[in-house]
């Protein structure tokens, strides 16, 4: 019985997801699904960051960089033309097993594209390697220095994708093909696939939330919470703090990368703005607004703010509204909006 209680919020979110989809389909307003899908992918990044900031207490002002690494590697590999390779024996083998396919480009010449799944795994692998390389030195720092270091790495990734020809420079990469998951199910922005893409995105969100939820209540999660509470005490208890922090950093980076890959295929492209510092700041701000370690608050804040921003609800005042909400929440509800709701409910009960 306690199992159901633990997973109840997840089930309720799942219920809401299905309910909203049915609602919008019945009322003929399926277009909301687009922004809800995009928000879902950003929420996955937020969930990973929430784990890192809330449970391990490590601020990361460069997380948009991991989103970008995932998206860019996948985009670059799926749009690159491997035609010269297709003739060699490796190329021929790859075509035979279906990992590379031949097609025609808009000008009519034959090109060879690799299977998006290959690109997916390659992107994740690159992300893991880079996350380990960055995490090892960076996680030894604390406070403002940690923030600056993550800011610095995010900045390097941004300037790298901005300045590299392979990644399209300032224009980014466009015409990224659809990512076929299984027969009939593919991640793409086409209007016929709206409902299926919505479910793919939200399924991933629920999966991420489930993973994080389980992590928090597991042995590793308790170790992380003790590190957050007091790092020296945790070390004294025999917890390998450096290893836990590093592994969590890499896991949260992978969450961001997965979100990046899927959103890139959904949007059909990616640009350097996805790696910018302002994006990283936005992610951190949303996690803070949800309550640093409150998963549900983070999801709520992320979906609401991203949805309204992507719909252009606030027009030119979008940034101003975001900044104001951020400051207000940080001043009045530092443990997140949900704790405030809780507090209000308790006050009203009295």
């Amino acid at each position, binding site marked *: 019985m306690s199992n159901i*209680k*633990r997973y*109840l*919020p997840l089930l*309720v*979110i799942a219920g*809401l997801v299905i309910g909203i989809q049915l*609602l*919008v389909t019945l009322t003929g*307003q*399926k*277009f*909301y699904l*687009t*922004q809800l899908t*995009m928000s879902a992918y950003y929420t996955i990044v937020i969930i990973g960051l929430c784990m890192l900031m809330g449970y391990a207490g490590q601020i990361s002002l460069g997380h948009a960089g991991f989103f970008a690494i995932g998206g860019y590697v996948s985009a670059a590999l799926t749009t690159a033309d491997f035609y010269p390779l297709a003739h060699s024996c490796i190329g021929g083998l790859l075509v035979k097993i279906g990992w590379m396919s031949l097609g025609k480009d*808009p*000008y009519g010449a034959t090109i060879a594209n690799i299977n998006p799944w290959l690109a997916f795994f390659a992107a994740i692998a690159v992300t893991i390697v880079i996350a380990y390389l960055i995490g090892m030195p960076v996680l030894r720092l604390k406070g403002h220095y940690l923030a600056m270091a993550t800011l610095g790495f995010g900045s390097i990734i941004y300037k790298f994708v*901005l*300045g590299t020809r392979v990644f399209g*420079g*300032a*224009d*980014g990469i*466009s*015409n990224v093909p659809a990512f076929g998951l299984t027969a009939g199910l593919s991640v793409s*922005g*086409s*209007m016929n696939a709206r409902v299926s893409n919505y479910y793919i995105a939200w399924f991933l969100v629920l999966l991420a939330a489930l993973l994080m939820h389980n992590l928090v209540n597991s042995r590793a999660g308790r170790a992380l919470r003790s590190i957050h509470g007091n790092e020296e005490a945790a070390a004294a208890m025999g917890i390998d703090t450096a290893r836990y922090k590093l592994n969590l950093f890499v896991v949260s980076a992978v969450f961001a990368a997965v979100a990046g890959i899927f959103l890139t295929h959904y*949007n*059909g*492209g990616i*640009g350097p*703005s*996805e790696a910018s510092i302002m994006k990283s700041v936005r992610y951190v701000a949303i996690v803070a607004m949800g309550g640093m370690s*409150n998963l*549900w*608050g983070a*999801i*709520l804040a992320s*979906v*609401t703010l991203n*949805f*309204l*921003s*992507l*719909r*252009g*609800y*606030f*027009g*030119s*005042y*979008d*940034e101003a509204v975001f900044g104001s909400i951020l400051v207000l929440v940080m001043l009045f509800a530092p443990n997140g909006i*949900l*704790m405030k*709701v*809780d507090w209000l*409910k308790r006050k009203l009960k009295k």
Partner: protein
Amino acid sequence: MTRRSWAAVFAAAVLMMCSLSFAAKDAKPAKAAPAAAPAPAPAAAPAAEPIKIGAIFAVTGPAAFLGAPEQKTAQMLVDEINAKGGVKGQKLVLIIKDSQGSPEKAVSFAKQLIEEEKVFAIIGPSTTGETMRIKSICDSGKTILISCAAAEVIVNPLAKYVFKTPQKDSDAARKIFMALNKLKIDKIAVTSSNTGFGKAGKEQLEKIAPEYKVTIVANEVYEKEATDLTGVLTKIKAAAPGAIVNWSIEDAQSILAKNMKQLGFKIPLFQSHGFGNIKYVQLAGEAAEGIIFPAGRLLIAGVLPKDHPQKTLLEKYKSDYETKYKEDVSTFGGHAYDAITILAKAIETAGADKEKVCAAIEGFKGFVGTAGVFNFSATDHNGLDINAFEMLTVKGGKFVVYTN
């Protein structure tokens, strides 16, 4: 944990319902989005169905110097057209979305405009990056897209519904090389900013230089937000070029001009058509004297001969814009002007049918716009050639025609 999660779920449900209902309100047709538009679009005429036109501009954010004049121009033109009774009796409704220069928002707005508002056409976006991301969305969504962004790739490879109004970068580069040849300068240094515009220009310069027998002895890319370019110039000094060609669209153009004079450079400075705003001249002050650049004739409308086809249009746009908004007109806003006038004329000719309008635009020959005289065709969705450009220079703080 349970109480928190119940609170979460409750709040989530309430917020989702609220935001959906708010969003539902803004999905109603014939309503201008809450953007920084100075005047809301007028309501639909009871007689004929209004035609909805969407616009995605970077009104605020890092590309605001492009999007803000474009938005103002578009709004001014649509109001003017509606005041005259609309296009064949049908009023135009302009729905402006501020993408803030973000391609993700551009994608989201494009889908919104196509699916929800069911717009007839989309004007903009302001930057190449955003345009490339929505190009296939508009084409597969069968919505006309008339972009205000400059890169060749927008119309090449050709997409049936996609057009663009700014001139070709390659033509601008050719004009510069022709002027260099006349001045007998064969060694140049190229500087560009790391933006889409700068990158596209740099590539054109590199590609076309051998044709005119010009060698590029130094080739540097600087940051868009660069505040000081003396380091770049020192490196260029060592390479001893005969002229510097700068290709960017931000205020770094003025900083480069000032730094050149401060460092004692005596060689000429060529800029791209991104210099087309008198503000850059004002910022560079005395250092702007003698800068040579290709531009649309909007900037020298006053000195055009009376029989020049563009003269009346340009002077009218200039005086209307400057009276209404009390700021100097720029060539960037002109791209939006052309987009809307082309669309309006096409609807007038062919009626409110997307396929017929596309065919109509492709048939336009000799269409007078601010950027030049357009000659569209089935293979040319840009319509401008090298004659759209006039070489200009700065004298006494004003734009004048460049004569050698």
